């Protein structure tokens, strides 16, 4: 971090008013550009362009929201998991997602927003979450398909984010990717057990892969020539590879894995292209993607209303925790700095959050 420290003076926000606002901004912009060009990390106290900050808040918030909405389709099967071992793995996985939500909301808070504000935007539909979670989990095999394909696609997207130019996001992603790769292996292993199981289990696995394959490919976002935010994000090194590059990488990884699983990917056009050194695949139905994005997917309404309901039904609990903290805080500076007024609640579970971080669910299971 020696290089980063050398830039610290030039990039840090001034405490007093600058002599000339224009000169000063230009100077900060140069330092920022130089840091990005040199692959250094931008840190919370560094000056950054407003657009960079807004893009990061949007992206990190969407990612955080996806983690917590993403708990729903899988939690749908916790109470019906067919063995105690699978139940433990699934509960630990859903717990990890809540933990990822926590790291990501914290990363977003370093940019000057708050978890409450972001949750408000989620609940009022002003911020989005990944459309993949607007599809239902109809059978137990869907839990495996989500692990293998959805988490697999997420990892393909997220591994490059570990090198994202914004420090707190990049560091959160390192942690998250480690856990996601457990989840992906667990999903693969779940599907393998089904595929090699009874004919009914095999059919259940194939049906789930049929339903999740195309939506998983859509997780990489629209094709490069239609992607709204891509070019600027690449320049800022928030994003490192284009949507189409990542999608291709994912397809290339999945084809041999599907063969090992004994399952078929539902695309008659999938074949190895010697010349390109990649698998060719069939056209994606982007009209479905845009429909789901607009709110017309099978579960959009259900996911959001359940999230809102949990939040509203929990309001009295959060208020109680805040009231209790206010009564029992004797002026300790740490506890008063809590931004969203639920000091007590945060305090209670912090020890537990550490527990989760130190000892991942996957290991426990």
């Amino acid at each position: 971090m020696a290089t980063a420290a050398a830039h610290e003076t030039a990039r840090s926000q001034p405490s007093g008013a600058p002599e000339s606002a224009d000169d000063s901004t230009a100077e900060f912009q140069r330092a920022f550009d130089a840091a990005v060009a040199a692959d250094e990390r931008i840190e919370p106290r560094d000056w950054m362009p407003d657009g960079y900050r807004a893009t990061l808040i949007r992206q990190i918030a969407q990612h955080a929201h996806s983690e917590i909405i993403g708990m729903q389709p899988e939690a749908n099967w916790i109470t019906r998991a067919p063995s105690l071992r699978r139940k433990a793995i699934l509960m630990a996985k859903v717990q990890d997602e809540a933990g990822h939500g926590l790291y990501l909301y914290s990363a977003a808070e370093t940019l000057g927003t708050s978890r409450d504000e972001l949750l408000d935007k989620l609940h009022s539909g002003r911020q989005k979450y990944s459309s993949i979670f607007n599809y239902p989990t109809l059978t137990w095999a869907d839990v495996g398909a989500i692990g293998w394909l959805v988490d697999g696609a997420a990892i393909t997207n997220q591994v490059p984010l570990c090198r994202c130019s914004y420090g707190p996001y990049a560091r959160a992603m390192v942690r998250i990717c480690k856990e996601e790769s457990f989840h992906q292996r667990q999903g693969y292993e779940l599907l393998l057990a089904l595929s090699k199981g009874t004919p009914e289990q095999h059919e259940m696995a194939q049906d789930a892969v049929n339903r999740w394959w195309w939506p998983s490919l859509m997780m990489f976002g629209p094709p490069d020539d239609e992607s709204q935010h891509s070019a600027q994000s690449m320049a800022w090194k928030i994003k490192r590879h284009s949507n189409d590059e990542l999608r291709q990488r994912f397809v290339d990884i999945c084809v041999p894995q599907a063969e090992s699983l004994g399952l078929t990917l539902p695309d008659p056009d999938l074949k190895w292209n010697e010349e390109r050194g990649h698998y060719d695949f069939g056209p994606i139905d982007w009209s479905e993607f845009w429909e789901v994005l607009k709110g017309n997917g099978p579960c959009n309404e259900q996911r959001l209303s359940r999230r809102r309901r949990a939040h509203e039904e929990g309001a009295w609990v959060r208020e109680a925790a805040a009231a209790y903290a206010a009564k029992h805080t004797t002026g300790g500076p740490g506890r008063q700095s809590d931004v969203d007024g639920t000091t007590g609640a945060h305090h209670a579970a912090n020890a537990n959050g550490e527990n989760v971080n130190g000892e991942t669910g996957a290991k426990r299971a």
Partner: protein
Amino acid sequence: MTTPTVKDTALAPAALALGDDALVLSHRLGEWAGNAPVLEEEVALANIALDLLGQARMLLSMVGDEDELAFLREERAFRNLQLVEQPNGDFAHTIARQLYFSVYQHLLHTQLADGDGPFAALAAKAVKETAYHRDHAEQWTLRLGDGTEVSHDRMQQAANALWRYTGEMFQPVEGLDIDWTALQTAWLEQIEDVLRRATLSVPEGPRTGAWSAGAGRQGLHTEPFGRMLAEMQHLHRSHPGASW
């Protein structure tokens, strides 16, 4: 349908009683996933559920196949307390259930860990987990009891509603070398202390339910338990003999 075989008859009553308590409460806590009032509680409740599920798996495996015992027994063969099968209700009900049970379980594990019986090693490990569960329940009882007027009322109602299920915890379980009278005295002292600090009153009224004391341990359960098992066992039973 195959009836699960229980291996060791000497250990069975205690392994099933303690194992079923952990299994059933873990399941109930699992129902909170995605519904908790604050994100930290998603993590905390899942953590407790996972601890309990781990305990259940060890205990059930001592006397048979854990999955056969969990998924193929009928309602009347379960030996858990009625307390742990009670529906989650609001967050206050869940916390009251946690408080009553985790104080009991912590005292039980402490006594078992101090002895040299077949459950000593397991209890020695579990006692660290249950100490955390007890603290979690206690902290929330304090916050809700001494928080707002609304939370105070809800917490009091929850404490009252579940009080009737606490008596059977102290019915002796065959095969456990426990001083049950001392356990009950210590439990009452600790519960009264927490409730008092939470500005709540100690519930009045009987501490046994509609069945005689010890009902759950004898396989007599409450109506919601059958529906809970139907959901829990459905998938496993739909594919007889399958591996997962």
